[in-house]
């Protein structure tokens, strides 16, 4: 079977802010339809990696190649980490999701079916006329995803979209995302602290550790040794419930290491 097309390639990529280098020699290749989960301690450079894909951080060196379809960013959907936006003006869910069309050439006629599809996909069709500010945390997060989906993205970039959500809501969101990436094929780049989610939903993973990125298919990256390295670094970020079973599954000498 022919392997899917490459849509994102990083070759010896160096990223940072000013003189401060955050990531060095990043090499990875993302193909259409893959679900990449990016894991790493706080401040390791996960968000920097995403910002580079979004064109918000310029590489210091190396190559960052995006498929021509993605180069204009019209087909990239971005879900930011927080949903506590300024509540200074009234806004319905419908209006909020339509903001996702900014920067695209979608006209009024095409916007209506896209809006209906995005709301339905995220299970928000009943809330369309409701105020965005009256939604629960989980619903707001789904509205953020719907706002990204309305662009009909070839690539969906999510920066810790489940932070602050309870486990049930987190699970619901991930199931919806997975179903969406199957029905409307799109590649997913998902930054998270949750190993459990990565284990269940990722096809590929990128571990960001000490300025380097270990990237590849999930089974080859989320190995016990790599996870121990991650758990040692990520004392404040990982879900305790995630690391506990992982550490239990490791050989005794690994568990007892200081």
């Amino acid at each position, binding site marked *: 079977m022919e392997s899917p097309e490459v849509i994102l390639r990083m070759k010896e990529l160096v990223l940072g802010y000013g003189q401060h280098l955050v990531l060095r020699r990043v090499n990875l290749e993302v193909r259409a339809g893959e679900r990449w989960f990016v894991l790493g301690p706080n401040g390791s450079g996960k968000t920097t990696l995403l910002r580079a894909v*979004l*064109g*918000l951080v310029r590489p210091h060196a190396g190559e960052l190649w995006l498929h021509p379809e993605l180069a*204009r*960013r*019209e087909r*990239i959907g*971005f879900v*930011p980490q927080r949903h506590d*936006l*300024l509540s*200074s*003006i*009234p*806004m*319905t869910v419908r*209006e909020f999701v*339509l*903001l996702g*069309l*900014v*920067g*695209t050439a979608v006209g009024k006629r095409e916007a209506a079916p896209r809006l209906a599809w995005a709301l339905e996909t995220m299970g928000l069709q009943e809330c369309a*006329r409701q*105020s965005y500010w009256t939604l629960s945390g989980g619903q707001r997060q789904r509205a953020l995803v719907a*706002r990204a989906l309305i662009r009909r993205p070839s690539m969906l*970039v999510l920066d810790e979209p489940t932070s602050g959500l309870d486990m049930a809501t987190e699970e619901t969101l991930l199931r919806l995302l997975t179903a969406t990436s199957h029905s409307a094929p799109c590649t997913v780049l998902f930054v998270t602290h949750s190993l459990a989610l990565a284990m269940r939903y990722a096809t590929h993973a990128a571990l960001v550790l000490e300025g380097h990125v270990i990237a590849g298919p999930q089974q080859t990256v989320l190995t016990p040794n790599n996870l121990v390295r991650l758990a040692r670094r990520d004392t404040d970020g990982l879900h305790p419930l995630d690391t506990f079973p992982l550490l239990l599954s490791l050989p005794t000498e690994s568990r007892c290491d200081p």
Partner: protein
Amino acid sequence: MIHNFLSSWSLFHNAYLSGWLIAVLLSLLGILVIARDQIFIGAAISQASLLGIAAGMWIGSTVTFDLQSWWRSDIFYAGMGGLCAVLAALLTTGGGRRDDEESHEALTGWIFLSSASFSTLILSHSPHGREEAIRLLSSTIIGATRTDVWIFAILTAATAVALVKWYRPALLVVLDPEVAQAAGLRTKRWDTLFAVWLGVAVGFSIRVSGVVYTFAALILPPLIAKHLCREARSLFFLSPAIALLTGMGAFVLAHHYDFPPGQMAAACLSGVFAVTWSLHRLRAVLSRR
């Protein structure tokens, strides 16, 4: 009362038209000001404009004694007011801010206080200057000319067209700059453009209508509309409508009872705000039961 008002039209029509156009113009820009949750930038920019006018008068009287000189003309004073308003708007609405920098609120407070104090100090020893400062603070509007009407008509039309075309990107830049950047918008350029436009609008308005009316027209109509709307889009229709209708009513009342029109309009808008705010609170309480 209305007949009485209409009879004054031939004498004061430039003042009335300027006042209503200023109300519509500023009530549109005010939506983006309240969306930023930076209500007091209106007051700070107004005061900065007053400082510019005061500085213009001081420069004019220092450079020449000739009252007909360009240095002592309305155009020069308005230009100085506009320049200071633009600078204040750029400082208070400037985009990204690092954690170790002063907050926008701190800068707004500093601009307001330094502008208010320096404008008074600059004009305190000039009899004409003090008279002018009092006129600007007391919002008379009466001195507006045909040129003012044209200036505000052009500014209002340009603002309305721009908002019809770009209200969604403008809102996204204000509400979620990170996503706006990811969508390909240059948020710093948007912020700068907004600051310059706001500074120009406030700078010109102060010269004609004074601080109280300018600040009231910028802030109160969108705040009232916010109580009545469920959608952001409706704000762009309701806010100028409220500004215009209240302005018309206020000018009629001011003419009838011989009150200053600027203060009357600000008082009417404040009254309408109190009513809609009370209704909004009442509705919120009832919906919780």
